[in-house]
């Protein structure tokens, strides 16, 4: 599977995603510069974390209107897969590729901590190797991760099963105490109706090696790779 990792001025999780894809998953990967308009033969484009363009105006606002994101619209139209994590999720929302917005954390402080995520939707290429209700452990690191959408959008997200991850307790209960940033309905990650564009605040690349304290993030990448397995063996749950 051919991966591209987008680099905006101010992106900082680019090297981490690149490392996991190339050194842990042993998949081909290249950096995609923010001015590129041609995504070529890539299968999956990753929008990493960071402070693209300094997050001036609003987090992800400038990047959401950059040349590479324009190219991303065509790429998505052709069925390409997009994973936006942290700032990448903010960019996808700002670009309108996903609904809703990410606002300042309710505590008004940056939060870097381990979180538990309950998996709600396993019908996406990113999660099809997981069980519904499975609890993943992954860190977050952001100041603006409080997901918000209007009532109509939220109803649609629920009705179409587009909420992929919600912050939960270690045993999978969705509680106020387990919500690190005040996100609406504990939403940590959502997907487009086609299931091809996933945005999430947590960092799967920081939970992809035992040395880093956990491998739950790797399950997402393995799900992705599994989607390419022709006989579908990986997909059986």
């Amino acid at each position: 599977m051919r991966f591209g990792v987008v680099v905006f001025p101010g992106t900082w999780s680019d090297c981490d995603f690149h490392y996991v894809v190339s050194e842990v998953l042993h998949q081909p990967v290249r950096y995609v510069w923010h001015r590129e308009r041609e995504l070529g033969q890539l299968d999956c484009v990753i929008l990493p974390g960071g402070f693209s363009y300094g997050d001036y105006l609003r987090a992800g606002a400038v990047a959401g209107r950059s040349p590479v994101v324009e190219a991303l619209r065509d790429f998505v139209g052709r069925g390409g897969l997009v994973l936006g994590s942290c700032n990448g999720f903010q960019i996808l929302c700002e670009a309108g590729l996903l609904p809703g917005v990410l606002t300042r954390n309710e505590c008004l402080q940056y939060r870097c901590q381990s979180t538990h995520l309950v998996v709600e939707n396993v019908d996406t290429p990113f999660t099809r190797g997981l069980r519904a209700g499975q609890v993943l452990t992954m860190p977050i690191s952001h100041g603006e991760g409080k997901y918000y959408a209007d009532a109509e959008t939220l109803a649609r997200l629920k009705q179409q099963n587009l909420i992929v991850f919600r912050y939960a307790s270690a045993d999978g209960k969705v509680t106020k105490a387990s919500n690190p940033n005040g996100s609406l309905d504990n939403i940590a990650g959502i997907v487009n109706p086609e299931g091809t564009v996933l945005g999430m605040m947590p960092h799967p690349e920081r939970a992809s090696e035992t040395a880093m304290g956990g491998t739950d993030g790797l399950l997402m990448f393995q799900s992705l790779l599994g989607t390419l397995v022709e006989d579908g063996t990986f997909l059986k749950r």
Partner: protein
Amino acid sequence: MTGAEPKVTLDLALDAGLTAEEYDRILSQLGREPTYAELGLFSALWSEHCAYKHSRVFLARLPQRGPHVLQGPGENAGAIDIGDGWAVVFKIESHNHPSFIEPFQGAATGVGGILRDIFTMGARPIAILDSLRFGELDNPKTLRLVNGVVSGISWYGNCFGCPTVGGEIAFAPEYAGNPLVNVMCVGLVRADQIVRARADGPGNPVFYVGNKTGRDGIHGATMASATFDGHAEERRPTVQVGDPFTEKLLLEACLEVMRTGAVVGLQDMGAAGLACCTAEMPARSGTGMDVELSRVPQRETGMTPYEILLSESQERMLLVAARGREEEVRRIFARWELEAVEIGRVTEGGELTARLNGEVVARVPVDLLAEAPKYRKPTTELSELAERRAFDPLTLPEPRDYGDALIGLLGSPTIASKEWAFRQYDQQVGINTVILPGSDAAVLRVKGTRRALAVSTDGNGRHVFLDPRQGAAMAVCEAARNVCCSGAEPRGVTDCMNFGSPERPEILWQFSEAIEGISLACRALELPVVGGNVSFYNETSGQAILPTPIIGVVGVLDDASLRATQWFKGPGHRVALLGPASVSLGGSEYLWARHRRLAGRLASLDFEVERRVQRAVRAAVSAGLVTAAHDCSEGGVAVALAESCVTGRAVMGCEATLVTTDRTDLALFGEGPSRVVIAVEAARAREFEGLMAESAIPWRWIGTTGGERLVIRVGPQMVVDVDAGQLGRAWRSGFEGHMA
């Protein structure tokens, strides 16, 4: 020469922070009166902050060489060889004065400055550690300072994308008027690709790169070279304003341009900005520099040569490129949307010539600027010390309930959990942090190798106040011991010396003694000091801080998978106490937290025992025998045991028996160097005993992990029996409770 600026007089020179003798020296060396711009150059470069006028004669005593040293003091940062072709570049620096005036920007630009020191060497920053000192938390002003400093560090480090992995925060009333913000940064570079702050090769082009120059931060260096009176806030315009986004671009552009080989030298425009770079870079190379100030990118109009030279606007560098490769430099900076403007050339002849629209505004020998006068001012021992040391803490009443006393200590803000601060810092970006903040040392793997780096900072102002020489030596030992507790071998030291005014003999005595202590400890442990920083004048209205040398130690783990953390991992593990029995309540956290006294003598320090204990801990960790290792520091062995019980993911109880001493509180809370608590799986206890026998150190088994309570006996007597969960809650809320 320009006539647009004021004529220089002795009064003007005095206003600029120079002394009458220094001004005379300038007159005689130049053979004329300096121009206003030249006066600016001297006032900045001869400031204490830039020139270490009062400290250099003492600093020369520090050991600076060693088999692994690739770069010692005198460059942007020091560098140590760690094997596999890699070097670690590191340095600690203070930003105390600006952080008191404007805590958010002061701390933020402190982070920005030290990051630049690391990446100008060609290294990618991989870790930040912050050593912070504040007044006590019952003062609302302190709460504002803590909030501002922590959010400033968080804002800059997180946006830039370098993880904050360690450091400490401590509180004492002596820091109320002068908080300390010391930031250490660690970076990685290929050992053969270190870039230095040199201006070699006359004819080579000099580039100004990065942010535009404004009027912010002018006189920052001179501000940091004076004490505060009651009106420190009025100096807010001397504090710079940071832009971590631009710094991130500058990092990527600098590393990219250095990979091309087109860079001859690079220096951060930090304190004293362009003035400092244009003097220091040629001075290191025996060259000169000729620069045209009108070409310097400016964000304000009408800036004078004086202002352009002395601005401390952030995120700027001076880059000397190889002649003929100018286009490569321009192209790379343009790609990162940064300014890269050729402002001059390296010259022969050893003079700095600054021009404005062709007209010479300053022409000074760079050696004269770079070699400020050195002073050896008188030192006197603090008169009250003898009395303070003579005090015997054992004349104070013992607590009625030792369990309560322990809970109280764990909840004291200095000892309590600092998670409130650390969760505001990105700790993992770069995916290297294999031991997160919260253990004795943070550990970062070196990708592509089996190795890892362990880093720790330490410094106890009370110990140093009571006994500057031994207190400072103990700080070196403790920072090194912290690194050993992770399993790493200490390789190098950086020090940040925070003191009051060196013009007071008592303060200079503290400084001189502390340097001697650091020097002795570093020699005993064979640790070179490869860089650091001196911050004097930390006093307000005559009240100086506790003398606070902060010691940063970097160590190397040859096998990153053999590492240890401080918390107990499971029940049934045997617990050992390594190190000497000698402890003291003098200068202890217990004596302060419970009795509000700063007095007594420190326990003795034996370098040979320290060295052996450190070696034994490393040997045990690298043999895979250790399930937890934790240094005994503030609060003594009782607090160390309690921390091992409560700082892990799950709380774990422990039963331990300590040897009887003069008093129970001394046995529990007495502090002394060279002591480490270690947990070993019962099945491997024999192996551990064998290793300890070879180590020739004092040690004994003191207990076993398990259950839900921490039970401590002193001799036959049970003195502590508390629920570990309760200890955990006290530890978690002791600091955070004040901040929430």
